């Protein structure tokens, strides 16, 4: 009796203490980007950047940047082709960026997950954002796809957008 009462009291204290922090603590974001299969004479995997943009277009967080990381001499040379990302963030960085940059990916859908306990979302203030995905391909084109969203999400959300030539489906799934 005595034991169980103190246990339930402790539980209540825990729940109350946990409440204010809980939306941010549990927040998750998963991003799925489709690199389309293209029937072209000369194909090179695209350079790609995915980032979160504030309403004033400044960068709140870099999510992923794919470039030719194996080519130490020339790999970073073409990063400026991701023109918007280069302007907003890239030119302020040194490469590689820990936890952000990685090698280019083949055609197919690629998923990246983030949670608000660590990484780029840990310091993301509540507010309105846009997910921006920009892809640029050697001897190919360039495309930017945007998905507006609010953080933290009020409920589970599945947001979609689609590119027309350099990007396929882009999906942003948010969990509060």
């Amino acid at each position, binding site marked *: 009796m005595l034991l169980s009462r103190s246990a339930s009291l402790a539980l209540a204290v825990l729940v109350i203490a946990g409440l204010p922090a809980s939306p941010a603590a549990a927040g998750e974001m998963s991003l799925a980007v489709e690199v389309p299969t293209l029937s072209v004479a000369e194909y090179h995997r695209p350079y790609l950047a995915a980032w979160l943009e504030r309403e004033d277009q400044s960068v709140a967080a870099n999510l992923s940047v794919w470039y030719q990381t194996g080519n130490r001499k020339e790999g970073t040379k073409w990063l400026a082709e991701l023109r918007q990302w280069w302007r907003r963030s890239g*030119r302020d960085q040194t490469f590689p960026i820990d936890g952000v940059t990685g090698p280019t990916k083949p055609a197919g859908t690629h998923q990246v997950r983030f949670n608000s306990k660590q990484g780029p979302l840990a310091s993301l203030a509540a507010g309105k954002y846009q997910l921006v995905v920009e892809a640029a391909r050697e001897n190919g084109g360039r495309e930017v796809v945007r998905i507006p969203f609010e953080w933290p999400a009020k409920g589970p959300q599945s947001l979609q957008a689609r590119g027309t030539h350099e990007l396929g489906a882009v999906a942003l799934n948010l969990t509060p």
Partner: protein
Amino acid sequence: MNINKNAAKRISMHAGVAALFACLPFSAEAHRAFIVPSETVLSANGWITVDAAVSNDLFYFNHNPLRLENLKIVGPDGAALEPANMNTGKFRTTFDLNLATNGTYKIGLANDVLMATYEDEKGERKRWRGSAQTLNELPANAKKVELSQNQNRIETFVTAGKPNDVALKPSGTGLELVPVTHPNDLFAGDPATFGFMLDGKPAASLKVTVVPGASRYRNKQNEMDLTTDASGKVSITFPDAGMYWLQASVQDDKPSVKQAKQRRASYVATFEVLPP
């Protein structure tokens, strides 16, 4: 031997004619002088190549090379840099430039020329061209001397990595650009603000002309005519991505050489505007 000598003479004559054209005052309809870099926004240090010409069309090479005797390249730390592989051909001057450190580079030339007309001892009208340093070459017995000063500036800008503004500092002489929007941060549809200074002071009510490149492939110049405000600033919204040519000039009676009556100061720059 003779043939070679003649050839040499012809070449030097050509060079002389080209130099004359390059230094003539610009008018909106006439040949346009420009310096155009192979790219303006680089993510890594490395080489670029640069062309300089006086042409009818922007940015093609169909008239004369631009003489670059007064070329000055300013690096991100403000130090002067040397061009490599300089060559002057029939239609253009080219050189390479190593962007060894990150930041913004200004590539340009500033000419300060004195022009005179006078009457010699026989009463014949003569022309003279020189500078403040060679003013003593004017014949001592020259009569009815009319001296005017021409200050021309032709520039372009290139950035490797993060832009900075050390190279953009104005010198305080002639007509100069004082960018508010960085010249390597231009995107189609985004308004950019440029300031202009004449002798280090805001150039108010200055007429500025902006012409898009690739002029060979359209039937109109599509030029934008703008005027600076009281603080010498002008807002430009570039409609499309591409290379643009900007020109502004003023004429006044404030030459820095006191013997001159009139002064004409002009400014020309090439900008690259990127797709949004």
